[in-house]
């Protein structure tokens, strides 16, 4: 049995870890390319949202590479993501591929279904529930650390004294964390990564902008589709904070350890503009934008796949928030026809606007990095104000 899982941000690193832990045989899904998107767009329904098409394309590629079991996330609405697996399965079957599709719903929906799903792909010695849970909790703590180092990189890239220093620290940290196995080793790896980031030479006097990155998780996390917006902003001296990450999505209880604000705070912040859950990351987008605006960010970039239902609602609401909270917000909808130049021109315009607002004193500019306790990049002032 050769398993394949779609790509998104750090997911390939996590899958590698899971495969090592449980002795799974898996095929790494090829990274996204023009061909992936072409295949996906040709097979998928015309108005389906972009992640469905992209993932479908990569499934075709990985099936051609020899995979026979596809694992996909499930859900129960209202976002279309919950139906991806079924639609993709039907399309691939019609195309004549033979494979098994496992649609895994979140364990909080039904632990039994989740367990049974995993049992069908895991080797027998791992399927006992206590062992499984212990290993999954370890993976979870590792996922959090993977996202934390990314958060540090986002906060420091705009300040680095020599270009590429942060990226190499990020690479090394991923390598270090990837090797960790037990809980103790993971903690140790986090410390090591932290000291690696401590060694990055910074130019603290440099004027920088603070930019919030919000939106739909797939587009925000996958550099191929957002044209590597994180490094792009970093190279232009912007300190970036991001609202979505894999660990916040899978972390039980809505604590959002990486973003730093739990679901209740987010919902409360969003309430004047959007007072109900709309599925996907819609509410998070609105809540995070409010939080960033109150913390004095210079601009917010909102990334969404074309026609994404929750994000389109957020986009409509963001237009009003932008004027009421006095913060520039740029919504970029991405699909298979979006061009790099168009996105970058608009981003440049946004940064120019933010700089001119800064010069006119309309935004004060906030300290990029609070230094107590290592690389603490979150700002507690908002929580205190609540």
């Amino acid at each position, binding site marked *: 049995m050769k398993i394949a899982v779609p790509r998104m941000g750090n997911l390939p690193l996590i899958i590698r870890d899971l495969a090592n832990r449980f002795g799974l045989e898996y095929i790494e899904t090829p990274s996204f390319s023009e061909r992936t998107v072409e295949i996906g767009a040709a097979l998928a329904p015309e108005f389906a949202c972009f992640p469905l098409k992209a993932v479908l394309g990569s499934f075709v590629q990985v099936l051609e590479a020899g995979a026979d079991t596809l694992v996909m996330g499930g859900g129960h609405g209202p976002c279309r993501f919950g139906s991806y697996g*079924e639609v993709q399965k039907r399309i691939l079957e019609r195309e004549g591929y033979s494979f098994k599709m496992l649609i895994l719903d979140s364990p909080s929906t039904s632990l039994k279904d989740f367990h049974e799903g995993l049992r069908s792909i895991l080797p027998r010695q791992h399927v006992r529930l206590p062992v499984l849970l212990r290993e999954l909790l370890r993976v979870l703590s590792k996922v959090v650390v993977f996202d934390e180092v990314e958060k540090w990189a986002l906060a420091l890239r705009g300040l680095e004294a020599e270009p590429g220093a942060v990226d190499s620290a990020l690479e090394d940290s991923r390598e270090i964390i990837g090797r960790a196995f037990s809980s103790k080793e993971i903690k140790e790896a986090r410390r090591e990564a932290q000291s690696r980031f401590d060694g990055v030479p910074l130019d603290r006097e440099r004027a920088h902008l603070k930019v919030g990155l919000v939106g739909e998780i797939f587009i925000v996390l996958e550099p191929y589709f957002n044209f590597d917006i994180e490094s792009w902003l970093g190279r232009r001296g912007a300190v970036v904070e991001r609202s979505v990450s894999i660990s916040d999505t899978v972390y039980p209880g809505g604590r959002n350890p990486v973003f730093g604000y739990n679901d209740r705070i987010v919902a409360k912040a969003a309430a004047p503009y959007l007072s109900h859950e709309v599925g996907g990351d819609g509410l998070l987008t609105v809540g995070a934008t409010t939080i960033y605006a109150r913390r004095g960010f210079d601009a917010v970039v909102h990334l969404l796949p074309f026609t994404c239902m929750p994000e389109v609602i957020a986009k409509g*609401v963001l237009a009003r928030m932008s004027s009421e909270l006095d913060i520039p917000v740029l919504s970029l909808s991405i699909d298979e026809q979006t061009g790099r130049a168009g996105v970058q021109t608009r981003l440049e315009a946004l940064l120019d606007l933010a700089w001119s607002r800064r010069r006119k004193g309309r935004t004060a500019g906030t300290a990029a990095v609070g230094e107590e306790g290592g690389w603490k990049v979150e700002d507690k002032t908002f929580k205190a104000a609540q």
Partner: protein
Amino acid sequence: MKVGIPRALLYHHYGERWLAFLDALGVEAVVSECTTDDIITAGAFRADNETCLPVKVFSGHLLWLMDRVDAVLVPRVVSQERGTCSCPKFMGLPDLARSLDPDLPPVLAPRMDLGDRRYLWAREWYGVARSLNGSRVSSAAAVAGLLHGLSGYRAREDDGLPVGDMKIGVAGHLYNVHDHRVSLGLLDRIRSMGATPITVDEVPSRQIHKHAKTLSHRIFWGFERRLVGAVLHWSRTADVSGIIFVTSFACGPGSIVGALIEDQLDREGSVPLMTITLDEHSAEAGLVTRLEAFTDMLRHTARVARRINALQDAGNGGGP
């Protein structure tokens, strides 16, 4: 005090109940006029350019109401049935409405969550009733009346229109299909071609649930679940000669459900299916041509089937 209700989206499902609610409070209700070109243009111009056509139409109706009323009623319909949820657009609709124009009158947005326990959301309606200056007693009575009216789903009665030589199932949102301008008079056009259109709300609930359950995937959007159930019912009982799936540009659930229906009907090898996508441009000629081709094709298929049957009968009868 005048309260406006846009004649769009779920007004086509629950409009009567909402009007009865306002009536019980003695509040004057203003329903926007039937969709016109101007309403669609205004809505498409002001609403976010990526939203689906029905939300643009809704925005147009809202703008029409703007100067005519003191408040607008935009209930937040979270679910329409137990175990399902609505399209995200309905959940965020009041917030979208508030973001549309700063000069908009206050938006009253009581929650309507038919899949959940009544007492959890009925108090929001009570709050709205009180804010419209209803007394305690009349507010409670209005809410009770609303809850009573909403309990149970009734299939639409036969409307006594002429019956054609064949039936065509029209699977689409009621707010598209029953809006004469948005659907470009689809139902009337089908009637004028000598066929009888049947819409999703004419299929009994039991049939819908029976067939929706057989699908390998549980569809979580309430109306889409009905729609798929109705389509499977039509195709499996051969109740109709053909099915037209009507969706609107950028409809999220429609894109998924359309693909599922197409695939399922293809696997079951049943009645022909045509998909029509509506948008704000009124391309009537295109619609008419496609409808004519579809009905001609259905009639031709029926003729061929009859001839083959006749030949077979003749062959059976004449043999030794």
